[in-house]
């Protein structure tokens, strides 16, 4: 997969996560912030809707994607922005743990 495709995927995941987010909470706010950071780095021309269905599953995929993108980034500002976005997704997961996660 190319880097661009990964960015498109991350964007698509964030679009659906933000759209499906429940009432306003600190998790919603963190997701919104993560979306703002990703569109700062990448502005896609199409939306790639994710294949993952579950909310928690999408969060896990997104976190891995953002970590990978940040680590492979060759530009400092982009790398830091993506790390920030990944941290925010971790924050959301901490508020709402994925199914099957240790209790």
């Amino acid at each position: 997969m190319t880097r661009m495709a990964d960015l498109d995927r991350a964007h698509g995941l964030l679009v659906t996560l933000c759209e499906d987010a429940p009432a306003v909470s600190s998790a919603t706010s963190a997701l919104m912030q993560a979306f703002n950071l990703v569109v700062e780095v990448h502005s896609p021309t199409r939306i790639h809707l994710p294949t993952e269905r579950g909310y928690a599953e999408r969060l896990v995929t997104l976190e891995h994607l953002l970590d990978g993108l940040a680590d492979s980034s060759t530009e400092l500002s982009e790398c830091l922005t993506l790390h920030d976005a990944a941290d925010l997704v971790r924050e959301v997961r901490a508020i709402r743990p994925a199914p099957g996660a240790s209790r």
Partner: protein
Amino acid sequence: MTYGENQEVVSAALLALIHARSDPAAELGEILQVRRQAHMAVHERLEELGLSRHEPPRLHLNQSIAAARHPLHVLARILDTLPPVRPGSEPPSALLARHEGDVRNPHLAHWRTAARHLTLGNHDLRASADQAWRQPEAAWHLIGDLAITLDAFVLLEQRVATQKQESQMLENRLAAGSVARMANWHATDTSADLTFAAPETTLGRLGGPRIHLVRQPEDFALAQQALAGFLRPRMADIDDAACVDRPGLLAARTVATGQIRLATAFASWAEREGEHDLAQRFQAILPLYADLHRSTLRLSEVQRTASPLVVAQQSEAVQQLRKHHNARVDTQTMHALERATDVVAVTTGRSLRREVQTRRNIVSIAHEDIRVSAVVGTLGSCRRLLAASRALANLTPSAAGAAISPTRRQLAESLAASAP
């Protein structure tokens, strides 16, 4: 202090002078000098509003027509007919400063307060981050305040007027009343009340635009006002081909996310102070901003907007929340915060609607490919954004600074009831 708060103090001082039972007995010379400063401050404001830029009426117009067409000149003429006072030896800075002796002479104290706060109000207007009060709807609000102030000046002069001067005084009061009435009809925007002199904190070098830094919890209201100022459409936007300062998707998303964080914190502060109604009002804004953000998810821009001032000001407030998240603020500050937060919401809504409807820079991203609504000439793809913006713009309770003007209203009522 904002312009509105300064004008409230002026009105309270003038009300106290009108209701004073006796005429001043002591320190008449100083009272006259301070009063001269008040008259000069009014003249300065007339100039700020464009007195010299507008041609004076050539013909002698009917008084009511003159009030409608040349309100600034009508007010300037009233000011000119007030008895002149020769300048004294004391500089304005000494005359306007608070004096301990004023406690013994309320007349002098009230005149000094009025003069000082008229001058401070002028400064707020002149040094505001944006100059939105120069828009006609907002300027009428200021003209109305000036008309009432001048009406009060004339009423106070009338008490010591000779019989010969009385007909002139009557004419002046009727003229001031006509201008006040005109202003009341036309002043649809009271947001000028929230204008304040932006502190000398600059973004970048060479005296760039001012970002209000949040040093203490009380600064959040001023930071919100500065943000609203940066969001407000400006004349310069028309020529801003590079979209640098225009509000767009970046501004919408940044403000939505930042305001949710701020309003959540403000709600918890209000709750802690037992201000449950205020807390609910802050919480009521949250879904509106969430909707706004959600409405932008599938949108993009033909030409990317940067909105650096909006982003910097919003970021400053959100960053400082970390330091002040457990702040304790008094009720007055809470109300100021609520008013300023409402103004940000209303201004965001209005600016985005204007941007979507007039520029067609915002486009929808389809699943397959980009679809440019600007090209096909439809606003359909931005319908959600328009609806979310409208919801914010229609936030009414104390929205757009719905002017905190109880004392000004009281002064106007008192003047209406005071026969010449």
